[in-house]
């Protein structure tokens, strides 16, 4: 049904248009008006998409129900439950409709259900781990699959020759080889579904899972070759055909990978230019990946390999190019689609099994197949591992081998392939179908159920959560370099050598070409870890209620220029951590030792307190000139200050205009306050002219003059400010509500003092708030009262009045606060950003 339904998905638009037309023009000439129908039942127009949606809904509801009981899901893998549910539903449908409907159709499966799962697994594949184990993965995928196919096929044929398979199963050696080829491949969907819940160590997981992805090429080739041999008839097969079969293995696998890489390249290149249309970034990722799949499918190459390579290849560049929001969108959409497809696959598998018209039972064949696939899988794994261990640094031990043998799950791919067989050419198809169903059910249900206890019983090394630390990251890089160097010295061009080469090539050419310049500059792994750690600190700080550390905690993410990113991801992470599937929760728990924290407190207090004001004035000095990037050559002490204020400035820049920074807030902001965006877009445009502050360094003299709070006062100011930041969002919220109407009615021409926007550094204290809303102390609300008399800044009453509590507390800053009031427009824009954040929280 789905196959029929999904291509029709395009129809609802046409259908809806068609149905609307008659109702809108009941009096069209020539036709007697049917009279106004109050109620029309139009099931047929919506049937197909409606059913699809309904099935997905049923599947999702089933998932929810499963997860209501923690006990059940901890014992039984979801895939088992779904298959069982499918069986029940199929039985109901069969009983009601007297015929089996809604089965897993190969077309639907290969064109719609499989791609999201493969894309998800390719895109989120830990690439380092994957390439570290590439040799083993390829061996198991290619040699292992060939071995399984031929041994299983041959053994089944032998079984038949021995008379253990009923003679009504009419199949020759080629038929059995064909069956062996489709039943031998480990299935990525099943493996993923089961192994994700088992949590074995990463190496083991990546080997089994990587094998299941990469063996697609082998399966496809074997299946096609055998199928065409069967169709040609074994008598007509010539030696050249065998050669062609071998050659096609290379064509299909390498071709598929090449298609994937080409699309990965295109995808990365495209996202380089989406700076101004952030909203389509997630769409691009999905479209191009799907295009890769379809292209490979069209050219009868390995589509799974294509999508895997596409996801694997593009991720680094795409992630760097797209905005944070798009990243989250991609992640969630991908996960949602994959989980949706997986759910449907298992459910439909269950339903399909009910249809007894499709299959015919033969105990000998079924039992023989079950035994052979288990036996040859185990044997193959042992043999290959023995060979591989001669070359592996870390040998795979016996327990690993047991899990690998036992984890060789078959799944929907095999089922779809067996359904695709031509009954006229392969008379034993029905028997094969039945056997496949049994094998799939056995592996998914029995092995899926028992693998968890088995892993526990064998004490397989589990995956342990690494809490990444800067030291680990840095030293890991050091180790990589050391090993590459040692290989150089030893003169052995091994894995480390080539990885090092590749990284250099990537750094020199690929990244330059595929990442936008800002992203390229930002992208660095050590930096990345640093940056994430800061975010985690912020989160843990917020989690603790933010009391003890409030003054310093708020300045903790006092990182250089990418802070706008930092902040948004704090909120993102926070939201994600609520979703239950958060890897980061564990990391949040890793609060550093008390002494560490004290040090951090002291450090940040000093940084913030001593140097921030100084830079603030720097910012003033080059109001017109800089676009907020810190001058590079400042001494250490200045840097802290630079860091802090830049944060706020860039916040503005990136939020409102489209400079080179990542502007995650762009979309929301546009939606709320278009005029300011336009306005500030111009500003940033003018700023872009001088991309680096180094060209026009801040004038130190001016700086010296305007530094009244240079020494001790700054300390106080910072402390006070961070306290006030807690209050401000609350006030602002009320203030905003009061003023938004007045703002809109005034339709104020966006501020005329555009350059003044960059004067915001004086307000940097306030701009730290994006962190503050995270821990809004709601009890502060009643304590606040607007002093309306102080509202003096023309149009933007609320904004200025909101400043007042601060003005009272931040006496040292008052002079500059006044400056900002001259530009209410920019102030507005500034505050809206704050509100957007607050609202989203």
């Amino acid at each position, binding site marked *: 049904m789905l196959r029929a339904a999904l291509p029709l998905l395009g129809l609802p638009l046409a259908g809806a248009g068609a149905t609307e037309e008659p109702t809108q023009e009941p009096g069209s000439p020539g036709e007697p008006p049917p009279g106004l129908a109050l109620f029309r039942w139009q099931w047929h127009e919506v049937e197909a998409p409606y059913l699809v949606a309904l099935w997905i809904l049923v599947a999702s509801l089933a998932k929810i129900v499963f997860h209501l009981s923690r006990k059940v899901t901890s014992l039984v893998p979801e895939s088992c439950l779904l298959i069982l549910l499918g069986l029940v539903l199929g039985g109901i449908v069969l009983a009601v409709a007297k015929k089996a409907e809604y089965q897993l159709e190969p077309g639907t499966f290969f064109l719609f259900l499989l791609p999201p799962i493969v894309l998800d697994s390719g895109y989120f594949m830990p690439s380092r781990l994957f390439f570290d184990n590439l040799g083993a993965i390829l061996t198991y995928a290619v040699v292992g699959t060939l071995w399984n196919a031929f041994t299983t096929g041959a053994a089944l044929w032998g079984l038949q020759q021995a008379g253990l398979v009923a003679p009504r199963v009419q199949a020759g050696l080629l038929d059995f080889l064909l069956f062996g080829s489709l039943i031998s491949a480990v299935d990525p969907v099943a493996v993923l579904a089961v192994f994700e819940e088992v949590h074995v160590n990463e190496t083991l997981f990546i080997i089994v899972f990587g094998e299941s992805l990469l063996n697609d090429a082998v399966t496809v080739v074997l299946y096609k070759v055998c199928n065409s041999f069967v169709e040609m008839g074994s008598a007509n097969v010539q030696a050249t055909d065998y050669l062609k079969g071998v050659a096609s293995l290379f064509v299909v696998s390498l071709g598929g990978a090449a298609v994937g890489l080409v699309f990965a390249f295109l995808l990365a290149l495209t996202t380089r230019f989406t700076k101004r249309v952030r909203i389509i970034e997630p769409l691009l990722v999905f479209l191009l990946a799907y295009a890769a799949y379809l292209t490979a499918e069209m050219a009868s190459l390995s589509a799974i390999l294509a999508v895997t390579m596409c996801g694997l290849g593009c991720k680094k560049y795409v992630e760097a190019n797209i905005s944070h929001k798009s990243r989250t969108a991609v992640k969630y959409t991908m996960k949602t689609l994959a989980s949706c497809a997986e759910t449907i696959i298992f459910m439909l598998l269950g339903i399909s099994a009910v249809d007894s018209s499709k299959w015919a039972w033969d105990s000998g064949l079924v039992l023989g197949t079950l035994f052979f696939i288990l036996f040859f899988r185990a044997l193959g794994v042992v043999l290959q591992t023995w060979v591989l261990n001669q*070359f*592996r*640094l*870390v040998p795979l031990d016996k327990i690993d081998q047991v899990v690998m043998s036992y984890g060789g799950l078959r799944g929907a791919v095999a089922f779809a392939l067996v359904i695709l067989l031509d009954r006229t050419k392969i008379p034993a198809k029905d028997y094969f179908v039945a056997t496949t169903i049994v094998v799939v059910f056995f592996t998914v249900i029995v092995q899926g159920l028992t693998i968890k206890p088995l892993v526990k019983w064998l004490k397989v090394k589990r995956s*342990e959560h*690494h*809490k990444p*630390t*800067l*030291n*680990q990251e*840095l*030293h*890991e*890089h*050091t*180790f990589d*370099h*050391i*090993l*590459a*160097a*040692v*290989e*150089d*010295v*030893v*003169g*052995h061009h*091994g894995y*480390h*050598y080539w990885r*090092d080469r590749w990284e250099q090539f990537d*750094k020199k050419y690929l990244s330059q070409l595929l990442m936008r310049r800002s992203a*390229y*500059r*930002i*992208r*660095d792994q*050590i*930096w990345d870890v*640093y940056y994430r*750690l800061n975010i985690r600190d912020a989160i843990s700080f917020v989690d603790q209620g933010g009391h003890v550390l409030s003054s310093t905690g708020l300045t903790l993410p*006092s*990182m*250089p*220029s990418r802070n706008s990113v930092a902040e948004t991801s704090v909120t993102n992470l926070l939201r994600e951590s609520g979703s239950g599937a958060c890897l980061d929760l564990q990391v949040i728990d890793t609060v*550093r030792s008390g*002494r*560490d924290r004290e*040090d951090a407190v002291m*450090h940040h207090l000093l940084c913030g307190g001593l140097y921030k004001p100084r830079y603030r004035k720097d910012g003033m000095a080059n109001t017109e000139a800089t676009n907020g990037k*810190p001058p*590079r*050559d400042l001494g*250490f002490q200045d*840097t*802290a200050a*630079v*860091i802090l204020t830049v944060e706020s400035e860039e916040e503005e820049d990136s939020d409102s205009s489209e400079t080179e920074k990542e502007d995650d807030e762009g979309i929301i902001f546009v939606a709320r306050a278009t005029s300011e965006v336009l306005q500030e877009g111009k500003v940033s445009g003018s700023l872009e002219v001088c991309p680096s502050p180094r060209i026009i360094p801040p004038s130190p003299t001016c700086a010296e003059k305007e530094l009244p709070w240079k020494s001790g006062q700054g300390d106080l100011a910072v402390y006070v400010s961070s306290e006030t930041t807690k209050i401000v969002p609350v006030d602002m919220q009320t203030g905003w509500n009061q003023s938004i109407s007045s703002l809109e009615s005034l339709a104020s021409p966006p501020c005329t003092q555009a350059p003044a926007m960059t004067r915001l550094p004086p307000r940097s204290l306030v701009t730290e708030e994006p962190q503050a809303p995270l821990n809004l102390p709601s009890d502060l609300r009643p304590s606040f009262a607007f002093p309306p008399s102080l509202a003096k800044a023309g149009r933007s009453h609320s904004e200025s009045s909101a400043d007042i509590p601060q003005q009272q507390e931040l006496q040292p800053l008052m002079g500059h606060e006044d400056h900002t009031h001259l530009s209410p427009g920019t102030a507005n824009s500034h505050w809206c950003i704050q509100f957007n954040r607050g609202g989203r929280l």
Partner: protein
Amino acid sequence: MERAPGSGRVPRVLAESPSACAPAVSQASLLRLYHRFRALDWNEKGYLSRVDLQQIGALAVNPLGDRIIDSFFPDGSLHLDFPGFVRVLARFRPVDDEDNGNRDPKEPEPLNSRMNKLRFAFQLYDLDRDGKISRQEMLQVLRLMVGVQVTEEQLESIADRTVQEADEDGDGAVSFLEFAKSLEKMNIEQKMSIRILK
């Protein structure tokens, strides 16, 4: 690139002091290393100089290349003989089970022990050999490793944080013990080994 060594010389060198020059490195890799040593020693002076190692193309672009070359020449010596060459590389030999299992506690720690591997990495950081990685030394390494795209201030905050993270006694520097502790979760035996040196 590798020239066949004089047929008589290899056994002689290896026979001279196999245990002294090549602690626990197998004969096969010893032979391989000897070939390599001779190939690097292009003018047959019997030892390697810094220049010889610097001529390895890939090493020149390695951000830590210079430091790694330096670590082949301990105590400011200018000549690297074959035993020294092997001794440095022996640290990267994979750790066997037998190494951990029935080792005589009286014997000195094997060169490829976890601590020795870590020590090798540590001395790449610790330029002034005072047994501590100071903030400044950390910064220098970061400067080498992190691309140009990260600004100096950012580097400094990273360095600060890195030192802070590992520093346990609060002296603002990372001692070797602290260094080892910060990596205790990591599988050093695996990450600092090269299979061909078995």
